[in-house]
């Protein structure tokens, strides 16, 4: 009996010291991580709507399942040039997150995959930048295509899917298409209200 207590106490000491140390470190690193994520998202929004790169983004519907940003080309928020939203989709081996920008005609102005853990060498090509280029080739092909109609080539669309990673390509494409439809309904409803 005494022995069991002694074992427990020793294990407890090790656990408490480890947890305490990690808590201290977490308090130090978590603001940096959160700040990095916020900056990454902000940067992504500017990248996907180049027209608003010096403008203003206003968050709408933040409490619903599809919050979105209105993108303005000026810092005062007068000239609306498009919308930005995040999509989340189940890929082949991970849940992928994409930031999508569309203009007022619902054409895609840019997309950026901000999180994925797909198969290395196949699905990860969704973020691959070829040597000598500055942006990922897979994401570039979405530009100026009508967001409600995009499909991958295997589904009869014109988005060239990644060789060996059809599911990854399809997840990104379908999530953009479906969320755009949803967003369009929301925006139309909002315009009617005002």
């Amino acid at each position, binding site marked *: 009996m005494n022995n069991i207590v002694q074992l427990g106490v020793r294990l407890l000491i*090790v656990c408490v010291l480890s947890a305490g140390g990690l808590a201290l470190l977490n308090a130090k690193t978590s603001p940096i991580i959160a700040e990095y994520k916020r900056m990454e998202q902000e940067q992504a929004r500017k990248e996907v709507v180049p027209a608003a790169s010096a403008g203003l983004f206003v968050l709408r519907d933040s409490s619903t399942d599809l919050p979105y940003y209105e993108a303005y080309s000026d810092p005062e928020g007068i000239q609306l040039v498009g919308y930005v939203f995040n999509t989340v989709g189940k890929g082949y081996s991970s849940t992928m997150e994409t930031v999508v920008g569309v203009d007022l005609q619902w054409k895609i102005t840019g997309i950026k995959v901000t999180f994925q853990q797909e198969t290395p060498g196949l699905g990860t090509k969704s973020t691959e930048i070829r040597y000598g280029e500055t942006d990922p080739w897979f994401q570039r092909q979405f530009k100026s295509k009508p967001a409600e109609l995009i499909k991958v080539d295997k589904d009869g669309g014109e988005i060239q899917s990644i060789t060996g990673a059809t599911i990854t390509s399809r997840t990104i494409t379908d999530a953009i298409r479906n969320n755009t439809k949803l967003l369009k309904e929301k925006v139309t409803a909002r315009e009617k209200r005002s």
Partner: protein
Amino acid sequence: MSATSELIKGIWKENPVFRLALGLCPVLALSTSIPNAIGMGIALTFVLIGSNAIISAIRKGVPGKIRICIFIVVIAAFVTIADMVMHAYQPALHKSLGIFVPLIVVNCIVLGRAEAFAQKNGIWLSILDAIGMGIGFTAALTAIAIIREILGFGTLMGFPILGQSFEPVILMILAPGAFITMGLMLGGLNMIVARQKKAQK
């Protein structure tokens, strides 16, 4: 002499990947490119040094019955430190290593060194052992990554070296490519060691 040999044994004689065949999961998964391989090697070396040092320091107070529990708690703490620090200060690398950083906790090299070395030896020897094992692991991972990156992407550190006409061998960046490369290298090294032994006789 013995201190140096503890350091060097991990690199060749007891190389964790090629001689002990431990911790092969991240070796297979992350040897697709050289930066990934080196990043993973550094993360693992950090965890090894930390866990070996602490386990060696507390070894006299650790009851044999619950030593594995205590080792795992210590290892998990260091893995979480590596994960958090990397996430905060090297976000790009953290992204490309993905799930394999948290998975260091179940890497057999780390627990293996705690069990086989750190709990029986002093702090300095344990740290040297960890550094040697870490270097051996990183070197093995990088060696496999060099072959796979050249054949699978046609690049070295991201620079194309085989020209436009080279058609990348997709197999090499997939799991089978990792197994084939690893198997051939393991076999080759075994052959060299066998020949050395023969020559000594």
